[in-house]
Each structure stands twice: as C-alpha cells, then as structure tokens.
C-alpha cells in the first residue's frame, strides 16, 4: 500500500511538472495584465520544436533551446497583438492555439514523414533521470529509503527545475523591483505610467518570461516525459495550467499545490485504468480525467471564494487624459 502511494506520488511529480511550468508562465503573463489562453499552443509548439531539434542535432539541450525560441516567438506575437496593437487577448491566444495545432502536424509531416510525429528520441536526445548518490543502496531502508530513491531521486533535470521555479517565481514577483512593477502594471497601469515607467516594456518582459517557461514545459513533454512529439500531445495541459493559476489565485505556492492536486488526480487516473473498485466496478478513465476540471469549478464556485485576478487583466492600456 505504502509503495503504491509512493509510486502514485512519484507519477504525480512527473505529471505535474509541465503544469507547474505552464502555470508559472501564465502567472507572469497574467500578473502583468495579459490574459494568456495560449499557454496550450506555446507548450505544443515548444514540444514540437524540442523534439524536432533534438532529433536533428541529437541533443536534448539544443532541443530545449529551440523549444524556448519557438515559444518565445509566439509569446512575442501575442504581445505584439495585445500590447502594441491593444487587441483582444482571448482572440489572439485562441489564434495561437489553432495555428500551432495545425502547423506542428503539417511541419512534422513535411520534415519527418512519420504521420506528423517526430522520430523516436534516444540517448542524449532525451533528458534522462538523475539518480541521487546512494539511491540504489538506500532503496531497502524502510520508509525513508523508498521516499529517497523513488520519490526524490530519479527524475530528469526539468522536474527539479520546475519545482525550483516556484520559490524563484515567488522571490521575483514579491521581492524584486521587476516584480513590484509587474504586479503594479497588472493592477493599475496608469499608476505605472505616471511613475515614469513604460507599461509596454514591463508587459513585453512578462510575456517573454511566459514564453520561456512554456517552452521548457513543451520540451519536457516531448524530450523528457516522452520520447518524441505526438500530435496534440499537450492535450489540454495549458488549459489545466490556467485553471490551476486561477485556483491558486495567481500566487506561486498555491498554484504549485493546485498543479500537484491536478497531477495527483491524473496519476490516480492512470493507476485506476482497468482496476475494478469494490462496489463501483470499473471506473471509466474519462470520469477520473474530468475530475480536475470539475474540481476547479466546484472549488471556485463553492469553497475557496471568489478568485479575484489582477484588476487590469485583459484590458488594453490606452494612455489617455480627460
């Protein structure tokens, strides 16, 4: 039983990683006032770019760079539409998602001729697990051994990076000058402007950070969690990250726990596949997979109160004086 739990938690960490990265990406963007429904698209583009580059160059790290580049370019397009041209954030985000969904398959077909997939990645073209010192030797120590060797050790670098990003994000958002301006610009851009700071510049920096994190999340999907790009492999994780962001009320640590909760449900869903529960029978996987979404709606509606986002979110900044 204990071992099962550890294994589920272990899976939770791996499943949560892209959620955490994407949700933190969204946190930067939305804290600056830019709604980002395009997390999904940026992640998918990152996944494709990473897998494609890793397949060609044989290096996961080069794949990661390409993923970040692809995702940041999309973020800049979103920024150009929303910040420079004051377009509608949702429309721009949806457009990015749609384009990426089609473009990745089209390019994949053209470049690799494998039905839209990229070639399977092996060796250095993937991020491999990092085994902590003495993990194997300690594996048999009761309780602690299993936690150390199974739960903590043996993940790839991006998992650790995702978790390290949480305190880092907290520090940046709440303890630095950039963070202060970021929060201010999402609440009242006029205050920022009159303080002599460029609203557009802060927002562009925020969407670029968002792009970088989405790119890493994408690379994780195709070059760490899986061994290649599959059609639509982001599978709604961007939207789930957005839900976690709202659920966590745009704060890094609660967002982390929201992602872990969603990841946990996902891990349980996998575990329950084909298992017959006493009294219920076999639970359809879909019923479990829908849980994160149902949970978000229920919790937001009933239990945790209103999620009030940054006040100026989604509103284009127009400099005007009466």
């Amino acid at each position, binding site marked *: 039983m204990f071992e099962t739990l550890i294994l589920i938690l272990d899976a939770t960490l791996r499943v949560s990683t892209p959620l955490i990265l994407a949700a933190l990406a969204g946190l930067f963007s939305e804290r600056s006032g830019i709604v980002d429904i395009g997390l999904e698209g940026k992640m998918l583009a990152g996944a494709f770019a990473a897998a494609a580059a890793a397949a060609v160059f044989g290096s996961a790290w080069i794949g990661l760079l390409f993923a970040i580049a692809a995702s940041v370019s999309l973020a800049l397009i979103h920024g150009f539409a929303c910040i420079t041209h004051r377009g509608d954030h949702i429309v721009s985000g949806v457009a990015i998602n749609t384009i990426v969904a089609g473009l990745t398959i089209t390019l994949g077909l053209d470049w690799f001729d494998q039905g839209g997939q990229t070639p399977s990645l092996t060796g250095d073209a993937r991020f491999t697990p990092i085994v902590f010192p003495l993990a194997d030797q300690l594996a048999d120590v009761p309780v602690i051994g299993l936690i150390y060797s199974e739960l903590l050790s043996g993940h790839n670098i991006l998992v650790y990076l995702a978790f390290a990003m949480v305190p880092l994000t907290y520090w940046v958002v709440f303890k630095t000058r950039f963070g*202060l301006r970021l*929060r*201010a610009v999402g609440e009242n851009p006029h205050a920022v*402007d009159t303080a*002599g700071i460029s609203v557009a510049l802060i927002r562009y920096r925020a969407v670029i950070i968002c792009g970088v994190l989405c790119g890493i999340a994408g690379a994780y999907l195709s070059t760490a969690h899986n061994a290649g790009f599959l059609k639509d492999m982001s599978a709604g994780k961007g939207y789930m990250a957005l839900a976690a962001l709202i659920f966590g009320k745009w704060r890094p640590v609660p967002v982390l726990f929201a992602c872990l909760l969603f990841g946990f449900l996902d891990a349980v869903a996998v575990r329950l596949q084909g298992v017959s529960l006493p009294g219920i029978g076999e639970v359809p996987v879909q019923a479990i997979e829908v849980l994160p979404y149902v949970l978000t709606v229920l919790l937001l509606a009933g239990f945790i109160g209103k999620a009030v986002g940054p*006040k100026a979110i989604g509103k284009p900044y127009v400099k005007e*004086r009466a």
Partner: protein
Amino acid sequence: MTPRTHPYSIELKGISKRFGTVQANKNIDLQVPAGTIHGIIGENGAGKSTLMSIIYGFYEADAGSISIDGQLVSIRNSQDAIKVGIGMVHQHFMLVENFSVLENVILGAEGGAVLKQGMDAARQELKRLEQEYSLDIDVDAIVEDLPVGLQQRVEILKALYRGAKILILDEPTGVLTPQEADHLFRILKSLKDQGVTVILITHKLREILASTDNVSVMRQGEMVAHRETVNTDKEELAELMVGKKVRLKVDKNEAEPQQTLLSARELSYFDSQGVERLKKVSFDLKAGEILGIAGVSGNGQSELLNVLSGITPMASGEIQFAGQTITANAPKNAAQMRDLKMAHVPEDRHKMGLVTGFEAYEAAVLGYHDSEAYNGKVLMKRKAMLDECNERMAAWDVRPPNPHLKTANFSGGNQQKIVIAREVEQNPEVLLIGQPTRGVDIGAIENIHEQIVKLRDAGKAILLVSVELDEIMALSDRIIVMFDGAVVGEVAASEADERTLGLMMANAWNEGRGVQV
C-alpha cells in the same frame, strides 16, 4: 528683472496643443513664482488638464517652451517631468489599490533591483517627510483600506519622495469632505513654507480664494487673465471664466411645503456583492420643497435614487407614493414609476440619461417613448417629436438648437438641459435629480438651478442629490446627510453651515471626533 536668479519656478511660453479640430491650448503663457500656491481656474473643457498634462509629459505640446527655475527643459514623458522636479496629484488617483502605501510610493523609484534595501531606506525617508508635513499616514496600510483623503496624501507623498519641487494638483477636492479639504490646504500651506511651488487646478472659486497667492484664468483653451488672489473676488473670477457676468446666488423665496407626496420607510438595498448599500433609509418629501441629500460620493446616494426610481428593487422597506404602497414584494419598475408621475434625472447622463448615439429629438423622448403623443398606429410620429424638441430647445436655450445633432456632440451643459427638459416638461409630481450640474458650465448652472426652483414653486417635490455642497446649500429647503448607506442627520437649510454638514458627511458628528475643533 529682479536680481534673484530664478524668480519663476515654472514658466510657460506660447504653449499650443491641438487634438484634431479642437485647439485645446492656444498660445499659453504662464509664470509661477517660486514658493507660491498658484491657482488655475476655468470651466470644464477650458484646457486646464491638457496644459498640466503637457507639463507632466503626458502630451507633447505642438509649440511653445517650458522653463523650470529659469532653465529651458524638454519634457517628453513623465520620467522627464519627475527628473526636473515636477510631481502631480491626479484627479483620479494613480495608485495600485492592493499595494501598501510604501510599495506605492517606491514604485518607479525602488532604488535597486531587489526591493529590500530600497524599502528600508524609503521607510526612513517617508517617516521624515510624513512628520515634516504632518501627513499622518501608516506606510504599511493597504491603500484600498484608506479613506480617499488619505489616499490623496499618499499621492502627495509619492511626489515628495521623488523630490518634487513643483506639485500640481488636479481638482484635488472633488472627492473630499470639507474637513478633509481643509486638511489638504493646511498641508499645501506647509509645503509652500518649505519652498515647494504648488499649482492648484480647480473649478471651485472658493478654494482659489481661500488658498492661493495668485490665480490664472483659462477659457476655451486660452489664458485670459492673471490676478493676485488678494486683488480679486468670486464675481470677477466667475466672469473671467465664463466670459460674461454670472449670478452665483440662486434667487428663491422661502419654501411653502404642503402635503407629503412621497414617503420612504426603512429602505434597504444590498449590492451584488451582498454589501448593504442602503441601511433603513426613511424620509418624507413634501410638495413645494427641495430636499437635498448631501454626502461624499459613494455613500448610498446613487443606490437611493435607483431604488426610488424603480431601477433597482429594494431589499426591504416601503415607499408610499401617489396612493400606492411599493414594497419589495410589490415592486414597481422604472416605467411604472414614470407613469405615476415620478421623473428622474439620473446622476450619470452618459450612462443612464441619454443614448449618446441618438439624435437630440430621439433622446428627448426616452422613457416616454410609448406615450400617445409620439406614437401613431404603427410608426412613431416623427414630426410631433421634432416639433416638440424644437420648442423645448428654444425654451431651455439648448445650443446649438439642432434636433438632429447627436447628443454626444452637445456640451455637458446642453446635454443636461435636454435631459432635465425631458423630465420636467412631463409635469411630474416628484422629480428625482442627481448631480444636476456635474460637468456643466457656470452659465448653464444658473439656468438649471432656476428651473429647479421654478418647479418647486409650482408645488412639486424635488429630491436633489449632489456631491457639491455649495449646490445643496444653495438649492435645498431641507438637507439630509448620508453616510455609509444610512441617513446620519437632517438640518433645515436655513440652519445648515458647511462645517456641520461636513462633519456629518464624515460621520464625525456622532463619533464626537473633531466636533470641538
């Protein structure tokens, strides 16, 4: 000139600014002596705000020059303005509401990439500033929890922290109680004593006379006069602002209140957030009187108007009107209230009083558009509507008298006349009127006030809501004061003075705080 090196803290020469076809500023010259409080007065749209926006770097002037302390400067953005020592307190505060005072103050002047050091240093500096000017602010308080008077001081603190030597305040007293305004002027006085130059933009003559050393008057984008404050008076300034003689007093006889036309009992209302916006409000409104409702904006006056006029349903309570009893269970909507001869001039004419895309003659029948006078069997009687609109425009002196002009293109005063004429000409028994002269030129204010008094003298009842205390005192026969959704006091107009009303508006009357001042 005098041997002093910089006689003028700020000097403008030939500033012009055009927006499309509108010449907002025309060849403006202005000299503000160092260490004085300088008033700039003018009607809405006279170009005061545009001029200040140019000084603060929001707009670039098409022509002209700005000198600070005798040095020619170029101000292309707010950063430049801050650098040369200009600070601005905007009419709508530029504060991040969920930030602390400290965070708001250091925003843009953080003193390093990591906040810690800068914050500690700022805390020290703020303590000093705060004591020096007795601003009385807790730097760790969250701004949205502070009353507006204190929020305004945060704005002042922001400017001072950045080392402002010239402080511009744009309509600073619009949201303040008289006591808060007095405190503000004491602060400005102490700033002046420390050598800060203060520029005060306002349309309130009384403030100019009470607090400034010099005053400049703007009209239609031009600077029309400069005066030493001691050598001028209300009448002269008003005349300069408007360009013609104006009467500032409302002529009215003693009221002769008769039977009660409307009585409200324990009206309550909760907003969508569940906050109680009206707390058991009761009053009687009699024929032949003007009942003024005073209060700082946002203390339930708007909600009261909406409930009385049938726009929003009450939560509990009772209204007796025209032989009907209206309760939460037996509500009447706005159209039904109109049928009972209750007219309503809403506070916000753009949002509720007019459809700004409509032509004047269409806007002039809104709310009464189902009336037989305007309707044939199938189509509306366009000719009848136009004729009536023409008549009213003549009678109410609406300019331009063009029934086909879109209402958006009339000035504020003329828009308001269209709305008031529409309501008054229906010969109502009760008129609810909110902020009748907000954004209306002095010349038109006179006219609107006369019409309200005329309606009263015809034996109608008028409920007047206004945040302008002067207006409440000038028009009302009886005044009730609202604070936080409740009626906190009532006085006869003859016994009302600004200090008493002000204390009631701040609810300090009950708390005993400041009463002995």
